Each structure stands twice: as C-alpha cells, then as structure tokens.
C-alpha cells in the first residue's frame, strides 16, 4: 500500500514537472512588456498564438525573428499573435534587439536566462523554443517548422 502511494506521488510530481503536452491547455504566463505592463497569455484567448522563447544573444532566434516578420502582419489581421518571451538578463540588450529586428509583436521579458520560473515551468532547455496554441488556448504544436507555419496558422484560424 505504501509502495502504491509512493509510486503515485512520483507520478503526480513527474506530471507537474513535464513540459506542457500537446492537446492540453497551455499554462498561464504573465510577464512584463517593455513598458512594464503585465501581459498575460490568457488575455489572448480567441487568437491563435505562437509562444516564442528567445534571447538577444541567440543567433538562431534572431534569424527566426527575420522570418516571422515576413508572415506576421497579414496573419495578425486574421487573428494571429506572437507572444515572445525574452530570457535576457539585460533589459537593455533585449530592447536593442527588438529595435534592431524591427519586432512589432508582443514582447515580454523574464530575467535569469534558462532558470526563471516560466522557463522552468515550460522546460526550456534551448532556444529558440516555440509553442503554437489554438483559439481555445490548447497547445497544438511544439517547435513548429518555420516553413509550414503560415499554412498551419491559417488552418487554425478557420
């Protein structure tokens, strides 16, 4: 009996520590934007959202920004949003990168690189890490491929 209890405890703790699973609701995120206003993920319900963990010092993330810029404006009009979470320690570096990459989508910051509470909860081991969630806030893809992203988002917006 004790063993069963122990095993079930192990199970519960594993589940709560695992990365968000496809098909389940995305855990809430509430972080501050450049102006210090808190932006929550749940406030975007009804939109298709790409959650994007990145940092100014991450080369591949910066390249991905340049790709996202190409598809963002037209998809935004249809109800798509990007919720970018920078894990920069230095707010100045973060803001410089936003300006340099001409990013117009939502940007929030969580300090402490890979060790902040949100990065921890989402089990971020490398960046860029992206998650696609549907209008109901359900996680539908982890690290969706850049090439097929526009098509995928358009389908979800229907």
């Amino acid at each position, binding site marked *: 009996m004790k063993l069963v209890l122990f095993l079930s405890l192990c199970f519960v703790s594993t589940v709560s520590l695992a990365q968000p699973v496809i098909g389940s609701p995305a855990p809430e995120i509430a972080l501050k934007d450049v102006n210090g206003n808190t932006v929550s993920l749940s406030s975007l319900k009804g939109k298709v959202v790409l959650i994007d963990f990145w*940092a*100014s*010092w*991450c*080369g*591949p*993330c910066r390249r991905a920004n340049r790709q996202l810029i190409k598809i963002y404006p037209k998809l935004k009009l249809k109800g798509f949003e990007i919720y970018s979470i920078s894990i920069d*320690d230095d707010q100045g570096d973060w803001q410089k990168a936003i300006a340099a990459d001409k990013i117009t989508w939502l940007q929030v910051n969580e300090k402490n*690189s*890979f060790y902040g509470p949100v990065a921890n909860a989402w089990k*971020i*081991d*490398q*960046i*860029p890490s992206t998650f696609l969630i549907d209008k109901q806030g359900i996680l539908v893809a982890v690290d969706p491929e850049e090439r097929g992203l526009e098509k995928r988002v358009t389908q979800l917006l229907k």
Partner: protein
Amino acid sequence: MKKYSAIFAFVLFTAINANAQFTSASLQASGLTCAMCTKAIDNALKQLPYVASVKPDIKNSSFTITFREGMNADIDGLQKAVEDAGFSVSKLKLTGAFSHVGIKNDEHVEIGGKVFHFLNVKDQVLDGEKVLTVVDKNFLSLKEFKKYSNSTNMSCLQTGKAGDCCTKAGVAAGTRIYHVTI
C-alpha cells in the same frame, strides 16, 4: 644596516608578489547546434564552484565567465564541463591580474601554483591585466592546435603533462602543464 633591510624587504616583497590571479575567461564552444542557445553548457559551467557568473556574449559568440574572487580557477574543469555537456571548447581566453611575472618564449613558469608553458611570445614581464589564450589540445580546433605544434620541440604540448623535457627545468614528471600564448 637599515638600508640593507629595506632592500631585503623589497626583494622579498617582489618575490612573493610575482603572482597572478585569473579573474575571468572568455570561452567559445562548438558542436552540432548553437552552443550558446542550450542550457547544457551554461548549467554545467554554473555548477563549478569557482564560477561566479556565466554570460552569453553574442558579438564573440562566446561565454563570458567570471571567477569567484580569491578562488583558484580550474582550467581543465572548464573544458571538462563543456565536454560533458556534449560540446567542445574551440577557444579559451583567460584574463588575469599579473604582477612581476617574468616569462620567456618556449619556457615554463609557475604562476599561482600552476605551470604554464608560453608559446609564440616575446620575453617579457607581465604586469597588470593580461589575457592568455590556452592552446592545449582540447582547447582549440585541431587545425589551430597544429599551428602551435610547430612552436616547440617539447613533448609536453602533445600530452599536456611534464615529460623528460620539463623535468630538466625542475618540473616534476606528470605535472599538468598549461600551454598558453598572448
């Protein structure tokens, strides 16, 4: 007499003071994926007791590592941490505060309890903040390493350990020898 003791004290003082403390390092790692973008290396380096902070530096695509004050940084430990994380070191530069450390090209010198072998340098006395680049086998690409292989006839560059060549200079056989340049 007073004059002599003053000189004696001065000599003693400089002898004790010929030392160096490494304060920070710039480490470039390479692998199949973007080394800076993974938690693995960052985490491995932060676990080291003598590492105070690790900061990614996108301009030089390297990690800036600050050592804890007064702690002796284990240079091989940095390399091992990177390797255990699944990457390899492609460049390691050590920044240290030096005082009265005389160095000669292709000769060994003990600094802060470690033996260093300087390659491709001019004979000089190191004072103030200096940057040493480690050129041991697993601290740079094989191509770069081969360049330095021609800089010395001593076997210790290949093994990183004191051999026959070094014992003549009073270094015990088997002692770890760090090969560096400026």
